[in-house]
């Protein structure tokens, strides 16, 4: 009996050891994406990104070279590599994806529907990972999941921790502050950012109260309702075609746009208009991945200038844009924030002081000679 038992145990043990060895050798990683699907990932050397947000995330992690195909809108981003087009993120071209022979496809949680993607890709061995990268509440976890997939978990944690700490800093202060009433208008005139939108989320974190937060989506409002809601701050989203933020010194187009905005009859009747707290913001290179935190910082500063006098949203924005491999130039918010103006004066000041110093020295010397 004893002998049999020992042999049996030995057999079982060897089987377990072999199995363990096999698992460690194949090293298949199983992650749970934001849609709640468990995805087994064997390798992630060739990646297709259906949207600009996951493209940003991968670039920030420094793994741009693994991307082999991009969605149509992602290709329009100024930092986008030149790669084959796989169609819109909402309706991708299945054949284009398969022909690129990728290991994984990364897409949003909601779009495209399963029937349009997973079910078509079944049997091809291509894995679909659903991660949003545009929601401030889930972005940090998603970034770490991406790190695991790309085998750079530690770096991903480091980056996510940095941005999370910046966000926590803002949150910890705004929680105690009185809420400021905000009207945030999206790209179309009189189309408000309502509840459930990314901008609503940002207003809340930045210590504001969205005056149209009770309506969902992007409700159409009119001048009279804006007066009735009487916002204390007005923020207008402007696309980069109007803002031209990459042209550092050309403000003529945005200034003209801003003048037109102010000439709308309701603006001057609101608290925001009367106190001059009407801002145009270019959200094209801000409203994605960690740009969301820079955006939140800008908004927090707009809403609570005194409490956030030490916060430099522009520095966060710079960090974000530079992490995408681009140069940070231009004007992204108009009129510029008070601290930024001070910043410029300081930069100008040394030159001015130097000229003054040279002049005084020259005058003193001239006077000495005469005497």
């Amino acid at each position: 009996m004893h002998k049999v038992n020992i042999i049996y145990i030995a057999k079982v043990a060897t089987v377990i050891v072999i199995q363990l060895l096999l698992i460690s050798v194949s090293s298949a990683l199983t992650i749970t994406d934001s849609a709640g699907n468990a995805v087994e990932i064997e390798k992630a050397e060739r990646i297709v990104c259906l949207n600009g947000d996951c493209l940003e995330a991968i670039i920030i992690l420094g793994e741009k070279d693994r991307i082999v195909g991009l969605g149509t809108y992602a290709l329009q981003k100024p930092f986008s590599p030149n790669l084959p087009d796989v169609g819109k993120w909402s309706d991708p071209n299945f054949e284009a994806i398969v022909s690129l022979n990728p290991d994984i496809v990364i897409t949003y949680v909601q779009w495209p529907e399963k029937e349009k993607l997973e079910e078509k890709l079944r049997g091809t061995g291509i894995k679909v990972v659903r991660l949003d990268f545009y929601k401030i509440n889930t972005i940090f976890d998603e970034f770490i999941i991406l790190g695991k997939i790309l085998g750079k978990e530690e770096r991903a944690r480091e980056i996510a921790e940095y941005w999370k700490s910046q966000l926590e800093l803002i949150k910890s202060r705004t929680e105690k502050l009185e809420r400021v009433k905000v009207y945030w208008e999206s790209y179309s005139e009189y189309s408000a950012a309502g509840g459930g939108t990314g901008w609503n989320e940002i207003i809340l974190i930045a210590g504001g109260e969205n005056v149209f937060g009770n309506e969902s989506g992007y409700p159409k409002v009119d001048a009279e309702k804006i007066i009735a809601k009487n916002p204390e701050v007005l923020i207008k989203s402007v696309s980069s075609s109007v803002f031209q933020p990459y042209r550092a010194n050309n403000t003529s187009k945005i200034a003209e746009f801003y003048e037109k905005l102010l000439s709308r009859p309701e603006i001057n009747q609101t608290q925001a208009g009367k106190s001059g707290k009407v801002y145009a913001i270019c959200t094209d290179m801000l409203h994605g991945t960690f740009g969301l935190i820079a955006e939140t910082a800008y908004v927090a500063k707009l809403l609570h200038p005194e409490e956030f006098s030490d916060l430099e949203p522009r520095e966060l924005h710079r960090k974000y844009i530079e992490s995408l491999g681009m140069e940070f130039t231009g004007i992204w918010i108009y009129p510029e924030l008070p601290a930024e103006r001070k910043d410029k004066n300081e930069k100008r000041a040394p030159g001015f002081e130097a000229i003054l110093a040279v002049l005084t020295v020259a005058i003193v010397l001239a006077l000495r000679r005469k005497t």
Partner: protein
Amino acid sequence: MIAYKTALFKFPLYTFIILLPFIIAVFSAGIGYLRIPPEKVAGSIFRQIQAAFLGYDGEMTTTDVVIIQIRLPRIILAGVVGCSLAVCGAVLQSLFRNPLVEPYILGISSGAAFGAALAIGLGLFSGSVQSLAFLFGIISVFLAYSMAKTGGEVPVVNLVLAGIIVSALFTALTSLVKFFVDPHQLAGIVYWIMGSFSHASWSSLASITPPIIACLLLIMAMSWRLNVLSLSDEEAKALGVKVNRERFVFLSLSTFMTACAVSISGIIGWVGLLIPHIVRLSFGSDSRTVIPVSASLGASFMILADDIARSAFSFELPISVLTTILGAPVFMFLVRRRARRVWL
């Protein structure tokens, strides 16, 4: 020609109908999301008139701004647009001898939608949306008309077919633009196509009201010819009317009116079909009556519909949805009651 007699008998009724939009407009100035009591409404309007004539120049209060800068232009725009769509519908129904014709039959709405989509999609200069919508509205009707023209004649059937073709073409082109633009601009295009008066301002009114009123007066002055045109082509010719030329004149006038209206307010359906129809069912089909009564009722109806659109909820309802929901039951009631009456 019974209308001659009825016109005399119904004089007080007609006076009331003509004044109706103005009465509704005055009451509408007091309706809105902000509650402003009637005496304050009257006060701001009075002060504004005083300012215009006596040069009184004071600070405008919030109430003044809401009444003068926001509500009044919007109410007047709704009235002008409702009036032009209804008149255009009435003219085209006579011209096509068909009660199911609406102002958009020759593709003007699809053309205008394409123009607007193009302007929004390309992000052109400010005001380009209105100009391109107007331009393409006119172009689409011109295309349909030249397509329908065969050997100097412009038969009605050809016009209807050409209208369908042009509509289909521009609808496809609009879809193409929608497909290529990014989602922010897509929202703008969708909003524009749904129609709205929220962009109303005195300056937009100043650009469209004079041409619309001019067209309206011309159509009214020539409305007796419309009666002749609603006969068959042979009968009209026998009466000595140059059918093709007259048809061209009326088409141009009504197209111009609709293009003006659509370029500012977007596409608002149903009014151009509903109002002339109701008028014909209740007042007979003499164009000399139908045109002014349609103008007046169209304006009144649109102002009322917009009152609901802008004040019922804290967001704005699409005006096209409202015109249909309000109009359909009225229409159904009238059609059922007067079912036996012969049309035209």
